[in-house]
């Protein structure tokens, strides 16, 4: 059976997605920088669900490696059924303002590296006339906000990129799912004490798999973020710039 490839598999959301797809019987390929940890996750999904699982080295910023790495995976597994681009890095807004190299790294991981992986997945899926590219974007990408606009703009650009890719995929049989996540209870948000409810990574992963299965093209999770972001998008700039967001 063709594989489900998780890029950024060491994130808790990536790990939960691996378990989700493995429970449906798909072999999973876990792409990550930290191979030792990805290996433990591979052992986990195999032990739990009896599927083949493999850890593969992958760096979002090593753009030229994306094509060869993913075509090798596709060749060995007989195709890629779903490719999830789950890596991301919030960076540090303050640091990005002081040093553009830091800002650039955030943009490279969240946008350039994400688009590069999607470009590498696309021809493999188009050749097979089937497959779904899942891009993990963020509510932070819905409107530039003072507190994290570098990360937000990279995620927003990625979402816009996915919109275009969806159109291209329409004739080639490649589906594109954009996932705009609100707060999910992961390493990224653990230190934040907030009253806004955080979704569990497991629930987020389940919702994403269900969306893939039912052919949804764009989603917010948790869903309440859709109306919230609609309001924030509608705020006039003169008001927006004064809000402590």
């Amino acid at each position, binding site marked *: 059976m063709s594989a489900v490839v998780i890029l950024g598999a060491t994130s808790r959301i990536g790990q939960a997605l691996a378990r989700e797809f493995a429970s449906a019987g798909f072999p999973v390929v876990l792409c990550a920088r*930290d191979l030792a940890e990805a290996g*433990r996750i591979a*052992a986990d999904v195999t032990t739990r669900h009896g599927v083949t699982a493999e850890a593969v080295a992958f760096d979002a910023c090593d753009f030229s490696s994306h094509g060869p790495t993913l075509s090798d995976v596709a060749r060995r597994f007989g195709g890629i059924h779903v490719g999830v681009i789950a890596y991301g890095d919030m960076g540090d807004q303050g640091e990005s303002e002081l040093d553009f190299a830091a800002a650039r790294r955030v943009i490279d991981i969240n946008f350039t590296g994400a688009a590069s992986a999607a470009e590498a997945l696309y021809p493999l899926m188009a050749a097979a006339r089937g497959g779904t590219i899942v891009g993990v974007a963020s509510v932070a990408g819905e409107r530039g906000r003072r507190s994290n606009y570098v990360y937000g703009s990279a995620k927003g650009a990625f979402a816009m990129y996915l919109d275009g890719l969806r159109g291209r995929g329409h004739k080639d049989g490649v589906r594109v799912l954009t996932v705009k996540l609100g707060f999910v209870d992961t*390493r990224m948000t653990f230190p934040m004490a907030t009253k806004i409810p955080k979704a569990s990574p497991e629930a987020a992963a389940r919702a994403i798999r269900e969306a893939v299965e039912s052919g949804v093209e764009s989603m917010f999770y948790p869903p309440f973020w859709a109306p919230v972001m609609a309001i924030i998008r509608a705020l006039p700039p003169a008001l927006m710039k004064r809000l402590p967001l």
Partner: protein
Amino acid sequence: MTAWREMTVEGWGRYPRSVARCARPERLAEVGQALADRDGSPVLAHGLGRSYGDAALLAGGRVVLTERLDRMLGFDASTGWLTAEAGVSLLDVIRTFAPRGFFPPVVPGTQLVTLGGALAADIHGKNHHVAGSFSDHVRRVHLLVADGRTVVCDREHEPELFHATVGGMGLTGVVLSMDLQLVAIESPWIELETVRVSNLDHFFEVSAGSEAWPYTVSWIDCAATGKAMGRGVFMRGRHAGPGAAPSGRLIERLKAVVEPLLDARPIEPDWLLNRATIRAFNETYFRMHGRGVQRSFVHYEPFFFPLDAVKNWNRLYGARGMMQYQPVVPPDPDHRAMRTILERISTSGFASFLAVIKEFGESHHSGLSFPRPGTTLALDFPNHGQPLLDLMDTLDDVVLDAGGRLYLGKDARVTRERFQRMYPEWRAWRAVRDHWDPDGVFASDLGRRLGLVQDGAAPTGPTRSAA
């Protein structure tokens, strides 16, 4: 590097509570990193917080939440050995392996415990008389010790460290992973017999006659007095054979509907569980069961984990929280200690909502592992404050006189002096711990209270009283 968050940490009894800086590693290497980033403060592992008192608390220290270290690393279906990280829960093990015909060798009254917590408390189950405790089925424990190294220990490798870790309540290090031997089952169903027992002597009679059953326990009505003292409902069960029971689908479907509705968190009433309602419950529960022996098949969940049906049921006791009292006393043909304890409780007027009694089997542990041959009683009390603490103090003396001891996984209040008399092994245990953790890197509120750790605030030397 490590992201710490200040949190109020509590056990299942929600008494006491303490504030600590918590980390929640998601990768193996982050545990060692947290230890390195402790900044001079002591460290403690915390699983799912199902110990009742202060075992998983560390005021002002660094608490490492293990729930995300939940990877199953391998399983050998020909032997039943599972290798898994310490944050894997028994719920997860059962949901994964029961459909494949395997079950944990020992389970407590809730599935919401981690393997690390189960080992650190060396938990016992309804099958203690035949299967021993949790650690009897464990090997190759990977333990992160004070100097930052990971040591593999079991009965063959570093046995002293292993025996100190079993029942050692997290005070020898952080358990990272272990091998656990699962047992083969043929069905998710339990063949169950319930026997209504009319008093304490009757309980011991039925218990003696039930030794061939792998799972035995008795609910006991603590409010009953006089001739009825010790009355209850004895349950004995075994895993059913293949095809012995009806299909579980309907139950599974019903549960899917009901489960999300049963969450006590939004209620949290201080008045719900009072003496009158508890007495009424106990009376009804007793009457509900017909006389004599009743036979049936039940799903493993209601049999082993009846309380898991209501999420956060501890909140039913309200903000004051609750306390458990669980002693074991050695075998005694006259059951004097048990009688005295039950008498004191029934005359005290403090009713216990949930009380169970069971006879333990042999035990092969040194260390602080709790189970010993004899009779154990587990009682839940709403936290009535000082009068309840006073009652428990007098019960401690009864337990001590009988040569018994209390379960640390359920304790929030026993004094250091009484603890040290209950566990004369503490000195030898402490020597092993001091060898592996000479600078007191690992600590807990329980450890400080009982003199199990070096602590600036509490005297380090033994504080034996004249008694």
